[in-house]
């Protein structure tokens, strides 16, 4: 769905998505890194289990929620990818509270 422009270069970072190793460019957000790797489905909804992917890329919509290094409800579009990061699809997880979240 997205490709990287050839003039965009930089150091590579390795991370995993649901166990599959992927590479990103240093400085990418997790959402950009996943889109660049062809991942379009980031989570399933707590209500109907429908698949969702990032919508706004600016921290507003919360459609990009993933689990990062075992912590759920992380906004992939606001988190910078790091070497060795373990990113996983977030399945439902209705534990999210807008007031306080773990």
């Amino acid at each position, binding site marked *: 769905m997205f490709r990287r422009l050839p003039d965009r270069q930089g150091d590579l970072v390795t991370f995993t998505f649901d166990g599959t190793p992927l590479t990103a460019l240093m400085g990418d957000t997790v959402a950009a890194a996943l889109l660049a790797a062809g991942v379009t489905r*980031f989570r399933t909804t707590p*209500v109907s289990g*429908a698949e969702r992917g990032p919508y706004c*890329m600016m921290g507003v919509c919360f*459609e990009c929620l993933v689990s990062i290094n075992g912590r759920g409800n992380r906004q992939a579009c606001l988190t910078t990818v790091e070497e060795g990061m373990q990113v996983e699809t977030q399945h439902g997880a209705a534990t999210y509270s807008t007031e*306080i979240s773990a």
Partner: protein
Amino acid sequence: MSVHPVSAVSDLEEIYDLLVVGAGPAGLSAATAAAECGLSVLLCDDNGSPGGQIYRGITEASAATKSRLGKDYAAGEGIVTRFLASSASYAARASVWSIAPHEPETGEASGLEAGVSLAGAARLIRARRAILATGALERPFPIPGWTLPGVMTAGSAQIAMKTAGLVPSGRTVIAGTGPLLYLLASQLIGAGASVIAVIDTTPNGNKRRALAHAIDFVRSAYGLKGARLLAQVHRHVRVIRNVTALEAAGNGGLSEVVVTHRGGTERLPTDLLLLHQGIVPNLNLSLASGCASGWNERQATFTPTVDEWCQTSMPDIGIAGDAGGIIGAEGSALHGTLAGLAAAWRLGRLSERERDERAAPVRAILRSALRGRPFIDELFRPSDDFRIPANPETIVCRCEEVTAGAIRATMPLGVRGPNQMKAYLRCGMGPCQGRLCGLTVTEIIAQERGVAPGEVGYYNVRTPIKPVTLKELAALPQSDSAIKAVAGIVEKPVSANHPQSHV
């Protein structure tokens, strides 16, 4: 002099003269103007580098990126450079999740207290005044299928391009209206995206209303720019107009765009649909901090009430830029300067005369920068069909998957506004806190009741306006004000001397 970078909450001062929220053209200009008048200024922004929406990623942009994004983008360098040379403190990746009057446990209330999260920790800091320059968001675009993976906003594609050098690679359709639609389309086409169609949903009737402001528009900078962009897009891509219905279809992901126009209904096999129907002020922080707002019919949104010095209804809070009503990048920068000067005046660093003298040339440019706005607002006002979904199946609240039909069905129960509706539905109670459904819900209820949206009102927005994690909370001192900032209320312990009254 150069800005003082803040990278942990422990580096923050106890108190600043001025807190500025948002490092777009408005916030950068406000912070610069105030710091140049001698105020101690803290600028917080949740991105990794300054620039806001329009100038996102400008400090890291390569020459290739700048030429791809055009002159208006590169113009951001001047604003950022001047800010970086100021004496302000700058906290990147810092979210401000509450602002409230500072009410110490003893002594008199004065100034403000703000909740800030940075690098995994939260802290409450004080400021004598604040300027909210939180910018805008893309307006909700509730059509059938807008929640499918493969449907994103056009702005999101621009963000991916600015920050990560990503461009759409499959069959891409851009749909909607607004002055930015053709800019985004031409930037993506210029970068080599395979755009197969632009679906222009601008209602035909708008032209007539906009005509009243046409002279100003032609004399404004927008006129020529707009015409050039339009021609550019037309040369490369099929533009579909006179659109009456739009739908994203697919099973678990987008596979086609279904568009109905004068010539009938077409199904376009599509990999990526980019939606955009203008931008609206990012209201959550101003609403949560108690600033009054009202319905703006021309922009079809609520806008905070601000005076000519960017002053809100809250004594110590100003608002600058698109956050106060959409005025565009150039207007936002100038507005920010006025807000910064006003703060310096209110805090006694400028006399009224000095303030007015410095503001006069800024106001003159602002007047000409805003000249084309009424025309743009009228011409690109999105049609009711795409703001107020008639199809009962269309999802309005993406977080809780609440449909337009479900919202309408609460009307016979006596619902008069969005907050009462929450008694029946979880609409607006998900993590986005109504940002993607608030305006739609207000307008659906207004339509059902046959009254103006201003009469229906908006969600009550409470702090924290961004999720604060338990880990971040653990770093907060457990004072009354901290509890109030994260929970919105303080439950006073019931003691023998002060029995709880039952009023």
